[in-house]
């Protein structure tokens, strides 16, 4: 009798769990489909090409071009990678290969903690410290609200992701490789550069790609430091580096700044912005995924 009721319960629970799994997965797919559906009018009325290549975004005149935001997102991400990756890799190599265990025991939790700090705190720091600091650079019409400020904030934000994943990848390299290299007379550094890093390559690249994904997706911290101007970033004077001092707007910022005030086609165009962002991150994540898989084999 008890056995029978246990069987019955077994079957009931399985049904409940299946329903939960189904619901969860349904939610996952609803999100994608719903946003796509909301964006469709924008794609059909504005045209995919015009939307992606348009250089102007003036919703009041029904001009919707996402190119400034796409470039804005890419530039801040690039800036973050250039600044963040060397730092993160250095930190990962230090923790995995060089530093004594006692030091690593301090650095690792610190870096992990950095990863958990809410982005709005970084935004606050950027707004109160970085923007006024950058404003001191003597270039005409430099307001401090800039790609540079955004990139620095992002670099700090992606540092933990890249450091942690790279460190894991480096640690995963078999000790035999190191021993063999050292046995051949290589110095420790030569071993790291010539053997360990190449062996951990795909994991390291995956960590960078994950960092890119995080950088592209950041919203609030960007709104706080980048100025949100809808322009294609340009150098402020003859020095091409001053492009870093240009204001910009990111794809994420475009959504957050305007969604509350939007109506009609503008709303649809903002959903289209979401779709572009969605596709971009899926692309990047599947790249990371493929790289991690490759490493596993």
């Amino acid at each position, binding site marked *: 009798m008890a056995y029978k009721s246990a069987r019955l319960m077994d079957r009931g629970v399985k049904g409940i769990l299946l329903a939960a799994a189904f619901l969860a997965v349904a939610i996952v797919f609803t999100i994608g489909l719903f946003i796509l559906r909301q964006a469709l009018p924008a794609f059909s009325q504005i045209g995919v090409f015009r939307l992606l290549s348009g250089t102007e975004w003036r919703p009041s005149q029904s001009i919707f071009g996402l190119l400034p935001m796409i470039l804005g997102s890419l530039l801040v991400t690039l800036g973050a990678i250039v600044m963040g990756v060397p730092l993160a890799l250095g930190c990962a190599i230090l923790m995995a290969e060089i530093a004594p265990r006692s030091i690593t025991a301090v650095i690792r939790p610190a870096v992990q903690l950095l990863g958990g700090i809410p982005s709005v705190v970084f935004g606050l720091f950027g707004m109160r410290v970085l923007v006024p600091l950058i404003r001191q650079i003597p270039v005409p019409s430099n307001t401090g609200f800039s790609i540079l400020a955004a990139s620095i904030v992002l670099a700090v934000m992606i540092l933990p992701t890249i450091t942690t994943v790279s460190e894991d990848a480096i640690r995963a390299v078999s000790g035999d490789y190191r021993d063999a290299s050292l046995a051949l007379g290589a110095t420790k550094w030569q071993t790291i550069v010539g053997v360990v890093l190449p062996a951990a390559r795909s994991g390291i690249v995956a960590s960078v790609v994950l960092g890119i994904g995080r950088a592209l997706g950041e919203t609030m911290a960007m709104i706080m430091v980048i100025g949100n*101007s809808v322009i294609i970033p340009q150098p402020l004077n003859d020095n091409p580096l001053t492009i870093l001092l240009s204001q910009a707007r990111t794809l994420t910022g475009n959504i957050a700044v305007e969604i509350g*005030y939007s109506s009609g086609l503008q709303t649809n165009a903002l959903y289209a912005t979401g779709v572009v962002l969605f596709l971009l991150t899926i692309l990047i994540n599947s790249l990371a995924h493929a790289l991690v898989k490759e490493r596993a084999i």
Partner: protein
Amino acid sequence: MRRSSFWMIGIVLVLALAVGCSPTAAPTTAPTAKPSATTQATAAPTAASPTVAPTAAPTAMTGKFTAAGSTSLQPLAETLSEAYMAANMGVEITIQGGGSGVGVKSAQDGTAELGMVSRDLTDAEKPGLMVYTVARDAVVVIVNQDVSVDGLTKAQVRDIFSGTITNWSEVGGPDKPITVVAREEGSGTRTAFEDMVMGKEAVIVANAILQSSNGAILNTVASTPDSISFLSLGYVDKTVKVLSIDGAEANEVNASSGKYPIVRPLSFISKGDATGAVKAFLDWALGPDGQKIVADQGYIPVK
């Protein structure tokens, strides 16, 4: 040992759900509920409570509604609703921001009983909506404290915002580039400013720093040297400098006399005629008590 930790999650979950399912009940038992009563009382302008309470008490209005929309109307609406709720204990008004676009949308689709807009409705928006203008508001041009210019003409303002004038020296200031700060597209304040200052052809320069609320504009101008922007008069404080336009100082007197040129309506809108508690609130807001608060808050009364 293992079993006990598993039961722990169970208990946590049950607790979570118990608290989660009764959000309406929880606040009253929470210790922080007390300050809410006291704040409402203190927040209500002293002028309102004594005069309104006796007249409102007999009606004993009850009801619950939401007003959503323009951040320009939001501070005034919050003060009005707090005063009204203090006098009518049975009424509960929730004020939400979002912007004029949200105001129109939420009134149309019923998300909120009242929409708040800080601009005229467009012809496409008008059908089915009733407009109750409770106050008028001057849109003022503000600059950072370090800017030595004190006044501009409307034409100069237009040229600065459209990017024709890019240096303060062109309008009598020092040789410093102008940093234009503006609201994002869709904002009621921006729409009103564009209608009244920029006209049909001129558009606000693309490299303007864009912020998505009145507060953020004030904040940005206060902290960015050589910057200029426009703002609802009700938001202005000592951290920025207000420019006179066409020689008229931006204050309530000039705005109500029509001497100051940039004035726009602040309105509640409802789908069809307002009824019940909503109507009572609007009547009160348009009556002497409400309009006194409007004037006290630095806006221009409509009556």
